C-alpha cells in the first residue's frame, strides 16, 4: 500500500471517528432535549386542561349550591329534585352509594351509564334531612379536551374514569368510548397518586409520550392524560438524523477528495523523488525540472537532491578529467566523510604517479636509446679514427719505405691519403672526437667551419662556452645534434643568406640560439622529414625547452638546457 492510500485511509478513519462521536453526542443531546421539551409541553397542556376541567366542575358545584332550596330550578341541570332518601335510580342512571354523613356535595360519575349523552355527573346534597339530587351534562369538558392546541397532529387529551373506561371520545377510535378500557402505565400511576409524564403504550397499543394526573373532587376520581405519538414528537430528530447522515456523507466525500488531493500533493513529489533516486542508482543524473519550488521539507528535499546531482556531476566531471589524464583537475571533498571524493583524489594521485613514472621510464628509455646510439657512434668513430686510421697510416709508412718506383709510390700515397681523409671524414660524421674531447661549443665551431667551405650561406658563430665546462656529455651531444640538425635545415630549406648561431653557458643552463633570415616555415605543420621532431625530442630528453619562431623574415630557434 503506498503512502498516498495510507494517508487517505488515516485521514478518512480519523474524520469518520470524529464525525461519529460528534453526531452521536449531538443526536443524543438533541434527543434528550426534545423528549424533555415534549414532556414539558404535554405536562403544561395537561395542567391547563385540569385547571379548566376543575373550573367547569367547580362552576357546576357552585351552581348546585346556589340553587334555591324552596324552588329548585336551574338550566344547568337536566334533572333536579328532592328525595327523602338517596334514590338508587334516577332517570335510568344507577346511583351508587355515597357517604351520607358528609355535608359536602357528592359527585357521581354517570358518563358510562348513558350512551346518548356525553359526560354526565350526578350531584347529591343533604338539605334539611332531605336529599337534593341533580344530574348535569358537562359538554364543555369534552370541548376542553378536544382543544388540541400544542399537541400536534397525533396529540389528544382524554379522561379515564374509575372503572378504567374512556370517558371522552377518542380521536382515533370510532367505537363508543365507554367500551374502551384504558389500563396504560400513565393511568395506573395517576390513580396510584403518582402524577407525572413519561413514554408508554397507550390504549391503542401505540407508543406515546404522555402526561397524566388524577382529578379528585368531591368523591369524583378521574385521570386526565395528554398524549402525543412518539413518532410525531420525535419527528424532528428523525429529520435531523437523515440530515445528519446526509451531512456526514457529504463531509466524508469532501474529506475523501481532500485526502486524495492532499496525499497526491505529498505523494507525487515523493514518487518523482523515488524515480530520480532510482535513476541515480542506475547512473542517470537528470536534474529535477524545478517543479517543486516550495519551502517545506519536500522542497528542501528536492534542493538537496539537486545538490546531490550537482556534486555527483562534478565528481563525474572530475573523474572524466582524471580519466583523460588531466591531473591538474581540482576537487574539493564535500566533507570529511566524502569517501568517493577521497578515493578519486587518491586515484588521481596514483594515476599521476603512474603517469609520471611511465613518462619517466619512457624518457629514461629514450635517453638510454639515444645515449646508446651516441655511444655506438662514438665507438664506431673511434674505431675508424683510432683503429683504422693508424693501420692506414702504418700502411702509408710501409709504402713510403717500400722499394717502389717513385711514380707508383706517389699514386699509392695519394690514394691512401684520400682514403685516410675519407676515414677521418666518416669518423667525424659519426661523432667528432672534438665533441667528446672539447665539448659542443668547439665541435659546433668545427662543423660550421667545415660547412662554410661549401655553403653559399654566411655563418656567424659565437661560442661562449666555458673551457672548463663540467656539463654532462649527453647535453653536449644533444646540443651538437640539435645545432647540426638546424644547420642542415637552414641550408636545405631556409634560402637564408645568413645564419647566426650562438651557444652560451650560464651558471645553471646552456642557451643555444639559431636565427636565419630565410623564408621561414610553419613550425606546427607536419612535414615528411622528422628533423624538427628529432630536435624537439632531443631537447625534451635533456629536460630543455625549445622555442621556435618562424616568419617570412626568418626563423629563430631558442633552446635552453638546464645543467644543474
Amino acid at each position: 500500500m503506498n503512502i498516498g492510500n495510507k494517508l487517505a485511509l488515516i485521514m478518512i478513519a480519523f474524520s469518520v471517528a470524529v464525525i461519529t462521536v460528534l453526531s452521536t453526542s449531538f443526536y443524543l443531546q438533541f434527543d434528550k432535549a426534545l423528549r424533555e421539551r415534549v414532556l414539558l409541553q404535554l405536562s403544561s397542556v395537561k395542567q391547563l386542561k385540569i385547571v379548566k376541567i376543575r373550573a367547569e366542575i367547580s362552576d357546576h358545584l357552585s351552581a348546585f349550591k346556589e340553587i334555591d332550596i324552596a324552588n329548585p330550578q336551574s338550566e344547568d341541570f337536566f334533572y333536579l329534585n328532592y328525595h327523602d332518601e338517596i334514590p338508587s335510580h334516577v332517570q335510568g342512571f344507577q346511583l351508587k352509594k355515597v357517604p351520607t354523613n358528609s355535608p359536602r356535595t357528592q359527585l357521581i360519575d354517570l358518563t358510562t351509564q348513558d350512551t346518548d349523552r356525553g359526560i354526565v355527573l350526578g350531584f347529591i346534597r343533604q338539605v334539611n334531612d332531605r336529599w337534593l339530587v341533580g344530574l348535569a351534562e358537562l359538554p364543555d369538558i369534552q370541548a376542553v379536551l378536544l382543544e388540541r392546541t400544542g399537541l400536534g397532529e397525533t396529540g389528544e387529551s382524554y379522561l379515564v374514569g374509575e372503572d378504567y373506561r374512556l370517558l371522552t371520545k377518542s380521536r382515533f377510535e370510532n367505537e363508543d368510548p365507554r367500551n374502551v378500557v384504558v389500563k396504560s402505565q400513565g393511568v395506573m400511576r395517576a390513580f396510584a397518586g403518582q402524577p407525572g409524564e413519561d413514554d408508554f403504550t397507550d390504549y391503542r397499543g401505540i407508543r406515546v409520550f404522555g402526561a397524566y394526573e388524577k382529578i379528585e373532587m368531591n368523591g369524583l376520581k378521574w385521570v386526565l392524560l395528554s398524549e402525543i405519538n412518539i413518532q410525531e414528537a420525535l419527528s424532528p430528530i428523525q429529520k435531523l438524523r437523515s440530515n445528519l447522515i446526509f451531512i456526514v456523507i457529504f463531509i466524508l466525500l469532501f474529506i475523501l477528495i481532500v485526502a486524495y488531493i492532499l496525499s497526491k500533493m505529498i505523494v507525487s513529489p515523493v514518487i518523482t523523488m523515488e524515480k530520480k533516486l532510482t535513476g541515480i542508482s542506475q547512473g542517470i543524473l537528470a536534474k529535477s525540472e524545478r517543479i517543486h519550488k516550495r519551502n517545506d521539507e519536500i522542497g528542501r528535499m528536492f534542493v538537496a537532491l539537486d545538490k546531490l546531482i550537482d556534486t555527483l556531476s562534478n565528481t563525474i566531471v572530475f573523474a572524466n578529467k582524471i580519466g583523460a589524464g588531466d591531473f591538474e583537475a581540482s576537487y574539493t571533498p564535500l566533507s570529511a566523510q566524502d569517501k568517493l571524493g577521497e578515493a578519486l583524489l587518491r586515484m588521481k594521485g596514483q594515476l599521476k604517479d603512474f603517469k609520471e613514472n611511465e613518462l619517466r621510464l619512457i624518457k629514461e628509455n629514450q635517453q638510454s636509446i639515444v645515449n646508446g646510439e651516441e655511444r655506438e657512434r662514438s665507438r664506431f668513430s673511434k674505431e675508424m679514427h683510432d683503429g683504422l686510421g693508424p693501420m692506414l697510416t702504418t700502411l702509408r709508412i710501409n709504402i713510403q719505405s717500400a722499394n717502389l718506383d717513385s711514380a707508383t709510390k706517389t699514386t699509392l700515397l695519394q690514394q691512401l691519403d684520400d682514403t685516410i681523409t675519407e676515414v677521418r671524414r666518416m669518423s667525424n660524421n659519426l661523432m667528432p672526437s672534438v665533441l667528446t674531447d672539447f665539448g659542443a661549443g668547439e665541435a659546433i665551431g668545427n662543423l660550421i667551419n667545415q660547412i662554410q667551405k661549401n655553403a653559399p650561406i654566411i655563418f656567424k658563430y659565437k661560442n661562449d662556452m666555458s673551457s672548463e665546462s663540467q656539463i654532462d656529455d649527453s647535453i653536449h651531444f644533444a646540443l651538437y645534434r640539435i645545432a647540426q640538425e638546424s644547420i642542415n635545415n637552414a641550408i636545405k630549406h631556409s634560402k637564408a643568406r645568413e645564419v647566426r648561431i650562438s651557444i652560451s653557458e650560464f651558471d645553471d643552463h646552456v642557451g643555444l640560439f639559431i636565427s636565419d633570415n630565410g623564408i621561414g616555415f610553419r613550425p606546427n605543420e607536419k612535414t615528411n622529414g622528422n628533423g624538427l621532431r628529432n630536435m624537439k625530442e632531443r631537447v625534451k630528453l635533456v629536460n630543455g625547452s625549445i622555442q621556435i619562431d618562424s616568419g617570412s623574415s626568418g626563423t629563430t630557434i631558442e633552446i635552453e638546457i638546464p645543467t644543474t
Partner: protein
Amino acid sequence: MSKIKVAIVDDHQLFREGIASLLAKNEELEIVGEADSQTAFYELMESGTPHVVLMDISMPDISGLDLIRIARDKYPLVKFIVLTMHAEGQYVVKAVRNGAHGYLIKNADEQELISAIRQVALGRKHFNNEISNLMIGNIAIEGEAHKRLSDRELEVLELVSEGKTTKEIADQLFVSSRTVETHRVNMMKKLGVQNSAELIKKAAHLKLI
C-alpha cells in the same frame, strides 16, 4: 754528434713498428723505446731518457695530451711531438698549451717527420702551415686570463652603455633576448649592483667600458 734518442708512445703496435722501422733507416736517430700506455711510458722513461717522444693522443688509459702535461714537469728536458690522427685545431691548441713542441698528423711524410724530430731536438718548435692554420683558427678561444666579466658579457655591457635595447643587442650579438637579459643580470650580480644605470656607472668606474 750523438744520435737523437726517440721514443714512440702509441697503442698501435703495427704503427709503432712501422714508425720505428722508418726512423731506424735514419742514422741520426735512435729508437730507444716504445710504450703503449701511461705505465709503459713511465717505465720507458726510467730506463733511459729520450730526447724526443712521439706521442699519440688517443690511448686507452690516458689522452696523450694529458700525458705530455704531466711528463713535461717530470722530465723537463724531454721534448714531445704529438703524432696523431686528430686534425682539429682544438687538439693543436691544447697540445701547445700542454707543452708539446711539435704537432704532426699521422699521414705526414717521412721527410717531414724526421725534419720535425730534428728541429724539436734542437729546442725549436715544429708546426707546419696546415697545423698553424688549425691553431690560429682556434686561438681566439684561448683568451686572456680570467676576468671578472666574460668576453660576451663585456660585449653586452658595451652595447648597453651605448643605449641599445635588449632586442637590438640580441640582434647584433645573434643571441636571444633572454640570453641578453641573463647576461645583464649575471653582470649585475658579479658587480654587485641593482639596476642597469648602476651597472654602467660601476663598469665605467672599473674602466671596463
